[in-house]
């Protein structure tokens, strides 16, 4: 009935939970409203392999209302305890139930269609993907355009799965349904809302 939470590995969250979360929120908002632009978040270290930018998203956006899906490499006791302690968020193994999904580079991810696309009345209930990569600046170029981008923007995320961009394009073709993505590496984050169109350059 009652789940015990192992606190022995939990590291501190924001130094000032209110102000730090607000400034982090502002940066995340900038990232998602200017797709392709890299924002750097200032976040204390979280248990590896959760990177600081992903941890910042968790501390800023997630709470007891937002079930979290974790890809296999992130399902460690220390990450689960950390998320439960700081965000009070339930952890789910069903992609469709998740409000946020953390996907680690190198893991096998569920297909993008398994995540919740939102529904016509509440498109905001879709899953947001937090994709952890080794770098946002050294991979193959991807060209972006759409709302929030004046002409076009180019990003270089490393090691994205090959079929990801096609699957995403199909997923967001059903606008206003579709998943939003955050690409993270280190303390950097790129927002990719469902409105952004991508093309391999």
């Amino acid at each position: 009935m009652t789940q015990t939470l192992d606190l022995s590995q939990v590291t501190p969250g924001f130094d000032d939970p209110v102000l730090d979360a607000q400034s982090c929120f502002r940066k995340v908002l900038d990232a998602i409203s200017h797709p392709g632009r890299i924002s750097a978040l200032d976040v204390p270290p979280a248990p590896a392999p959760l990177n600081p930018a992903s941890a910042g998203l968790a501390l800023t956006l997630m709470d007891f209302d937002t079930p979290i899906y974790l890809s296999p490499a992130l399902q460690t006791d220390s990450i689960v305890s950390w998320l439960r302690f700081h965000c009070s968020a339930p952890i789910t193994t069903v992609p469709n139930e998740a409000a946020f999904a953390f996907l680690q580079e190198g893991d096998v991810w569920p297909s993008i269609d398994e995540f919740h696309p939102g529904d016509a009345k509440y498109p905001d209930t879709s899953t947001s993907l937090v994709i952890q990569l080794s770098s946002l600046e050294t991979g193959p170029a991807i060209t972006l355009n759409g709302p929030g981008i004046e002409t076009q923007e180019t990003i270089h995320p490393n090691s994205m799965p090959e079929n990801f961009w096609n699957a995403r394009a199909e997923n967001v073709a059903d606008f206003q349904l579709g998943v939003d993505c955050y690409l993270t590496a280190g303390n950097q984050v790129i927002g990719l809302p469902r409105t952004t169109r991508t093309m391999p350059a």
Partner: protein
Amino acid sequence: MNEKFVETDTLPNDANAARQSWMKILACSDPVNVESAWNSALGLNEVPCEIIRKPERGLVMVRGRAGSAGGQFNLGEMTVTRCAVRLAEGETGVSYIAGRNLEHALIAAKADALLQSETHHDKAFAALIEPLQKQIDDREAERASKVAATRVNFFTMVRTREDKK
């Protein structure tokens, strides 16, 4: 499991019983008494610890259950302050305190951590828990005696044997 019949207020009787009892004493004590006991606990109040959750205030929903077996209902919200700290040796102390007193929550969390550590337990128990327990007992005894002074006894006339038949 049928959630309806899960006892939530059973008395502690497992491995956590001792910890639950000192956490309760720390939480139920008057903040003034907690602070003065802490300040006079020399050597203990200087043990370094890492704060993993600064004292923070929030609301919790208190839920009730009619007749202890009925459906749950929301009784109302109450203000709670909570805190979590960790000692260098690794013990993590946690506190949940009714009210908005940040200092009380911080001290209770540190005390919980110290009480879990083998090196500090005995000293912390003698310096903090014993005096606080005594103060709670005194407070209860005083209240009980004040209440007892206003007690009204209702006597029922004992029936005679004839009445009973």
